[in-house]
C-alpha cells in the first residue's frame, strides 16, 4: 500500500511545516477496482455478465500465452530462449501438495507479460509460470523492491487492475503480499484446489 505510506508521510510533512497540530491532513486517493458488470433479469433472480470477455485483450494481457499450454508451447512464446522447455527439467513448486512445476524469468525480460505495468518494480521481480499435468494453469507476477524502486505496490496495482474487470469464469486474479513481495496471481478457472494456494516461498 505504497500510496498510503506516501500520503501519510506527506501528511506528516504538512504538519511539521505548518508548525501546528491543527493542520488538516491531506486527502489520500483510494483506488477503486471495477468488477465485471452483472446484467440481471427483471425479476433479479438470475444474472449474466453484461459484456462478453474480449479474447484479444486477455490474450494480450497474458502475453500470447493460454492456459493449458505445455511447457514446450510456452517456451516457444518466450523471448530469448535458446533451449526448449520440458516438464522433466522444471523444478517443483514446493508450496503445492500436488506435482506442480514452474519456470520463471526476470520481469524485466518479460516484455509481453508486463503491458499494463506503468510504475516501477525492482530488478529481483519475476514472472513465474506454473504447470500441473504438463499444462500451464497459473501466471504469478512477483514484484520485489530494490534501491531504485523501494515501493512496488503501485506496479502490482497497475497489473491487478487490468485483470479485475475480467470475469472469474475466464481468469481468476488475486493480489496479496508475501513479505516484501507483492504478488499478482492469474489462474485458470478450472484449476480446482490449486486456485487457493498462495506463494509462500522466500523472495529470491
Amino acid at each position, binding site marked *: 500500500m505504497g500510496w498510503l505510506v506516501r500520503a501519510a508521510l506527506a501528511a506528516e510533512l504538512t504538519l511539521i511545516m505548518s508548525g501546528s497540530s491543527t493542520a488538516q491532513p491531506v486527502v*489520500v486517493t*483510494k483506488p477503486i*477496482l471495477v468488477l465485471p458488470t452483472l446484467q440481471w433479469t427483471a425479476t*433479479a433472480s438470475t444474472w449474466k455478465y453484461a459484456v462478453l470477455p474480449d479474447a484479444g485483450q486477455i490474450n494480450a494481457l497474458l502475453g500470447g500465452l493460454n492456459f493449458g499450454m505445455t511447457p514446450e508451447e510456452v517456451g516457444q512464446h518466450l523471448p530469448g530462449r535458446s533451449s526448449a522447455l520440458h516438464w522433466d527439467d522444471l523444478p517443483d513448486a514446493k508450496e503445492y501438495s500436488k506435482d506442480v512445476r514452474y519456470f520463471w524469468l526476470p520481469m524485466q525480460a518479460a516484455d509481453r507479460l508486463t503491458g499494463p505495468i506503468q510504475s516501477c518494480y525492482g530488478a529481483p521481480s519475476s514472472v513465474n509460470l506454473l504447470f500441473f499435468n504438463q499444462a500451464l494453469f497459473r501466471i504469478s507476477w512477483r514484484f520485489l523492491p530494490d534501491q531504485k524502486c523501494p515501493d512496488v505496490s503501485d506496479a502490482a496495482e497497475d497489473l491487478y487492475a487490468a485483470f479485475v474487470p475480467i470475469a472469474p469464469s475466464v481468469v481468476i486474479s488475486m493480489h496479496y503480499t508475501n513479505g516484501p513481495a507483492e504478488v499478482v496471481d492469474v489462474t485458470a478457472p478450472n484449476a480446482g484446489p490449486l486456485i487457493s494456494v498462495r506463494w509462500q516461498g522466500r523472495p529470491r
Partner: protein
Amino acid sequence: MNACSVRRSASRLLLLLLPLLLAGTASEGAPQNFDLGSYGTPSVVQRGGRPLACTVTYLVQDDTTNQTYAARMQFDPSPDAAAGQNGRMPCPGMMPPTVGQAALDGCRSHAVNAADCVFADMKKGFSTSPSVDNTSAPGSRCSSDQASQIAIACWRSGTRDVCDVGCGEEPDTAVQAARQRCEATHGKTCNITGSVPVEAP
C-alpha cells in the same frame, strides 16, 4: 389522549415501523419483480437508439488487503420502460439481498478468505468487530436514477481502512457525502477517499 393525538401517534408509529416492514420484505430473499406497477411507469431514455438500463453500483471491500471493488448491477428496462422526471431510467425501489450477495461474491472471487469481503459502508463498531454483519448493504450502493457517482471515505484503524459510502452527481459531491457519513459515524477524520461513476462507461 384524544382521538386526534391517538391518530397522530399511530401515524408516527407507522412511519417508524415502515422501514422495518420494508426491510423485512426485502430480507426474505424472494425475487422482486421490477416491472411491477408499484415502481411507477418509466419513460424510455435512449443513447444511440438503445434504451438505458438502471445501474445499481455497490462498493465492497476486502478487509485484509483494504482493496475496494465497485460491483455494477445492471437491470434491463421493461419493454414499456420510460424515464422519470429527471430523464433517467428508474431503478428498483427495493433490492433483493441476492444482488448484494452477488456484489460480495465479486470481491470473494479475488479474496484469500471469503469472510474478508464486507460491504464498504461500515457501522460504528466495525473497527473493533470487523464482520459483514457490521456493514450495510443498502448504505453501500448508489442508483443511476439518483446519482452519477459513488464514493468511499475511510479512516485508518491500525492496518484496516474503516469506511463509509456516499452518492452524488459529481465526484466531489459524492466524496463529500461519503466523508460526512464516515466522520459522523466514526468520529474520525476520513481523508482516504475515492470515487467511480455509477454507470459503466
